[in-house]
């Protein structure tokens, strides 16, 4: 089990905001390992995993984004049916909520 650092970025929920964000990262040669977006009615949070967390944070802050670093747990799993639900079952039993 390994902890890694994830960057969460505040985004408005309107056309083009995600493209603007990836544009900024691309302009600064930031290579994204993973990305997902969680959204509410009028805003969302983009969560990204990159190699150089601190450099990326600087890039984002300079571009005017509100962002923060969160520690996330990475779990390696088998690429077979039921592997994810096995993990989710375990977490569910312990009452751990997945964001």
């Amino acid at each position, binding site marked *: 089990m390994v902890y890694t650092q994830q960057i969460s970025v*505040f985004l408005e929920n309107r056309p083009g905001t995600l493209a603007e964000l990836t544009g900024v990262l691309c302009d600064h040669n930031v290579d994204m390992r993973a990305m997902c977006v969680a*959204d*509410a009615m*009028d*805003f969302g*949070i983009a969560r990204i995993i990159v190699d150089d967390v601190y450099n990326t944070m600087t890039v984002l802050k300079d571009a*005017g984004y509100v962002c*923060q670093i969160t520690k996330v747990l990475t779990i390696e799993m088998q690429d077979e049916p039921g592997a994810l639900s096995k993990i989710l079952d375990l977490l569910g039993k312990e009452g751990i909520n997945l*964001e």
Partner: protein
Amino acid sequence: MGNYFSPEKETASREQIREWQSKGLVDCVKRVYENVPYYRNKMEEAGVTPDDIHGLEDLHKLPFLTKDDLREAYPYGLMARPLTDCVRIQSTSGTTGRRVVAFYTQNDIDLWEECCARALVAAGGTKDDVVHVSYGYGLFTGGPGLNGGSHKLGSLTLPMSSGNTDRQIQFMTDLQSTIICCTPSYAAYLAESINERGLRDKIHLKAGIFGAEAWTEEMRHDIEQALGIKAYDIYGLTEISGPGVSFECSEQTGMHINEDYFIAEVINPKTGEVLPDGEKGELVFTSFSKEAFPLIRYRTKDICILSREKCSCGRTFVKMTKPLGRSDDMLIVKGVNVFPSQIETVLLNHGYAANYQIIVDRQKNSDSIEVRVEMTPEMFSDELSKITAREKELVAALKSMLGIYAVVRLVEPKSIIRSEGKAVRVIDRRNLYKG
């Protein structure tokens, strides 16, 4: 019941107060009509002469005075006494346009200081207290006002002025200050610094008198807890005299206006109509007792409510709420008066920055109001649920402040349009005042 600095004044009957005010008004109107061309012109334009003013009931016939008048008449145009009779000048900070300069005779200073002494006594002060004044001294009225009030009361006065927090705390502990006078934000900062240094046990404060800026009940609670004191509000403006125009008593439910010196009215800021007690409107003062610089029906732009309900402290002077907003930029949404400053207060109380924009619209004859708030690092969280919960709290707080539902929209930092560096606070798409 409690102690009063001027018991015969502060607990006078309503009839007696009305009599003082009526007599004072008639005298004052005569004085300014005869000695101040600016006033005479204004009254002639309004078609009133001193013969029309027989008492308080005629106050409404007199024209209002605004900050624009003060600017136009700057510096000597509203003086009712020759300069040689004056002993002091104080001035407003004046962030926009020309500053306001107020003149005082010795009697005017005495009257002002008496008001501040009353505020100190209402906060539990006696001549045995050590009054620590951390308001700024200078043109600003905060320091000189409370300093003078403390002298009048016979308390030991520490004229600390603002800043140099280490020295403030050292004097406070070494000289055992018992009453602190400063802005509420400085009080909060002092409290934090004292607790950080672990000196809470070394201070002897019992009360604080905090004014000159807007503060909330929540701030009051925090300051009271952090310093182990009672925190009292004080209100005033340089144009009328300075701090002490009104002050809080032990009940802490509003500020008693010194009605033996000032007449207070609340008006509808749009129409100028005088409103009954209990209704929210713009506060208007007539400082009929002032010699050098009496103002008649001066519009403060502060929105508040007056109440003449019996107060447990025994004072009979009318009470005003804290200013609830400013009338300059009032909006009417769904028939309700909304002040951007009210929205700003709610945002600040909930930890948001004061970077906001209000968008008012009307669709199918129904008004809507949207408040756009810039996200800040402090309010951001990786968890959607936390952000939405904070958003909901904000919506509820706005509802309770404004009385109507406002949509909250969180936007990215710096996304609110700025014109010449200043954010455009209100966008009214209804075009109510055009064509």
